[in-house]
């Protein structure tokens, strides 16, 4: 089911190009012909956007773990997972592993905090959600405009497991956030949301692959994005319903706005279905800001730029409103508002 070849930053031959169908819109080879030199050490610095929500922390600085790399959750817990990059022209890889024990409830607050320039970051996260456990993963990504980063999350859901994910990003030179999720046993429930706000010539690629291997699983996906200037937003969502995964209910939507003349959106939603007792749907729209709404707001005395920002905000906030944890929702809201 893997949509990605195994990328190894020390071997340029493993970098996918657009000739690989799953990387059609994110040509890593084009921007990275040779393996980067390994990054040196970095300081952890500021406490990160989710500091006030407390909990445990896993921290990587230029790929080097500051303490543990694995976490096993039981009961109700909060974990901050921080990928800190502060490098110039070098590359680093980080890998974390997270397990939620049966019945556990984990709030996983992940941040990608990038400084420096032109670095290459490769992050891997493995998440196991045991029987009746729940994991809420919220990811905030802020990187320099000339950085390259690839993040791959592999999520496995056991029977009755619940998984909630919201990725919010402002892009980079080439950025891929990939989530591979499998419904390994009956009655699991997944929500995979995404939000991108891209300016300048930034790029992001939100790719998800959801594999329904067992019966009665549900998947709900909402991704929204806005591109300005010459930015490029990519959404690829694949839902597979395997033979025998009856009773699957999977829904996916991607809505994007191009807020400039030369912005670009590429979308590829896929339904691959081998079971007949299913309900599957996807919707995909690309449009521009509603001129009549813009006019209406300006009529009320609000300047054009502000009116635009208001409409963009209203459009994007729908994704954030789906976050169930109130405190985390507030942090994400404020984080995004500051970047509109």
């Amino acid at each position, binding site marked *: 089911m893997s949509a990605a070849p195994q990328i190894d930053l020390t071997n340029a031959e493993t970098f996918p190009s657009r000739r690989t*169908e799953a990387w059609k819109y994110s040509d890593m080879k084009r921007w990275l012909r040779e393996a980067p030199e390994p990054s040196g050490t970095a300081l952890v610095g500021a406490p990160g956007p989710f500091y006030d929500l407390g909990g445990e922390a896993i921290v990587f600085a230029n790929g080097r773990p500051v303490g543990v790399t694995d976490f096993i959750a039981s009961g109700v817990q909060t974990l901050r997972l921080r990928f800190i990059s502060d490098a110039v022209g070098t590359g680093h890889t980080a890998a974390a592993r997270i397990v939620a024990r049966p019945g556990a409830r984990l709030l996983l607050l992940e941040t990608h905090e990038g400084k420096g320039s032109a670095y290459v970051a490769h992050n891997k996260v493995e998440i196991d959600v045991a029987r009746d456990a729940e994991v809420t993963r919220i990811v905030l990504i802020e990187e320099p405009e000339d950085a390259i980063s690839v993040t791959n999350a592999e999520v496995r859901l056991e029977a009755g497991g619940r998984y909630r994910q919201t990725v919010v990003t402002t892009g980079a030179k080439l950025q891929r956030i990939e989530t591979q999720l499998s419904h390994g046993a009956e009655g699991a429930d997944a929500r995979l949301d995404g939000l991108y706000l891209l300016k300048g010539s930034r790029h992001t690629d939100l790719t998800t692959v959801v594999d329904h291997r067992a019966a009665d699983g549900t998947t709900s996906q909402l991704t929204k994005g806005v591109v300005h200037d010459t930015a490029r937003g990519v959404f690829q969502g694949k839902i597979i319903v395997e*033979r025998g995964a009856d009773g699957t209910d999977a829904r996916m939507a991607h809505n*994007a706005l*191009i*807020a*400039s*003349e*030369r*912005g*670009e*959106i*590429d*979308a*590829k*939603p*896929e*339904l*691959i*279905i*081998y*079971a*007949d*007792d*299913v*309900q*599957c*749907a*996807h*919707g*995909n*729209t*690309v*449009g*521009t800001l509603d001129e009549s709404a813009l006019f209406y707001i300006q009529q009320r005395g609000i300047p054009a730029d502000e009116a635009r920002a208001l409409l963009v905000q209203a459009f994007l906030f729908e994704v954030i409103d789906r976050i169930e944890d109130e405190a985390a929702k507030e942090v994400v809201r404020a984080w995004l508002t500051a970047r509109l």
Partner: protein
Amino acid sequence: MAAVKETVEAVAALEKYEHGFTSDIETEYAPRGLNADIIRFISEKKGEPEWMLEWRLAAYERWLAMEEPTWAAVKYEPVDYQDLFYYAAPKQKEGPKSLDEVDPELLAVYAKLGIPLGEQAVLAGVEGAPRYAVDAVFDSVSVVTTFKAELAKVGVIFMPISEALREYPDLVRQYLGSVVPVSDNYFAALNSAVFSDGSFVYIPPGVKCPMELSTYFRINASQTGQFERTLIIADKGSYVSYLEGCTAPMRDENQLHAAVVEIVALDDAEVKYSTVQNWYPGDAEGKGGIYNFVTKRADCRGDRSKVSWTQVETGSAVTWKYPSCILKGEESSGEFYSIAITNGHQQADTGTKMIHLGKNSKSRIIAKAVSAGKSDSTYRGLVSVHPKATGVRNFTQCDSLLIGKECGSHTIPYIEARNGSAQLEHEATTTRLSEDQLFYAQQRGLSEEEAVALLVNGFVRDVMQKLPMEFAVEAQKLVAISLEGSVG
């Protein structure tokens, strides 16, 4: 009681693939295999101008350098391109063809298929019945084209492409390969090298073609490939509706059908192209059947030009085709209406591409897929908006229906938007046949198979309505036949 009788007949027709008979017609073949000499042989047989032979040989060179693509979601035994006959023609008298001179056995084949080749027969038909002109292509050659004289009166050229190459070489040369270039893809290159026959249509400026034009393709000879080439040119302000039908005998072997269809629509022209594809799908175990690897593309060159593709795909073991529109003209529009029904071991990977290059160009895609048995069906489509195309609109809807536990249905729509003023909408659903509706229909006395046919016909109704009347009736029956054995 007419309805009852019709139902009884429809059910009787469910028995098997009714076009699966073979006809014992004396046939002339080219030697088996493919090389430059075979291409010279075909070109010579057709009495083609020198440039055409050069064109074919160049295509052959390109083809040799290409690799067979494997990206489609279909699996099939590799084709041995050296083990095919590239030219098979029924033997017949030389000289100009009129209906009287056509081998009566050939006419009998078309009569059996229900294709009216006698103009009189059509005229003497039911009062008010619409007439349509037919170009009948049998293996590698066109055997007869009807209503040519009547069409010529309004300036419409409708003839086999091999004949057009002799009579209107400049016109053919101007447009051939201008929509689907020789090296467009592996099968288009192969077709360019060895294409044998197909239809040529030219509608002069301002002319609304007075009747439906149609081509009826029949593969008869065994171990042959059919490589037809169709070229339709709608000049400024003209209109034509064109129908295409296909059948083949039941054979254990797989036969290759690699066609190319090119449509050119100039300013304000409109072309409506409808296909009912009913090639032999193979038997219940998946043995035999046609490989249908087709390139169909329309070039909406003119401003306000319009091309509409409607297809009902029920046949073939493997189908691989994407009728597309290049929307170059300002305010040009493209439409794609498709019904793809797969049963048994059939595989279909089909859809469309709408390439928006012109300002304010519009497109609409409605695709319905029904999968039953152990079949697999994929909708694959692309809507792309280029940077200079402002004001583009697209609406796409793909619905899939699954019947049974062993089939598959897939939807892969690509959207590539490079202009801020584009408005693109896509929606797709996949569901199974509703138990409640099936139960309800059976309560009213329909058998399970009839109930399925009724519900499926309802599911595909949006597209069915886009078909010309002559085809709609046939297509509706075809839906029922294709789903035979899919339940119970």
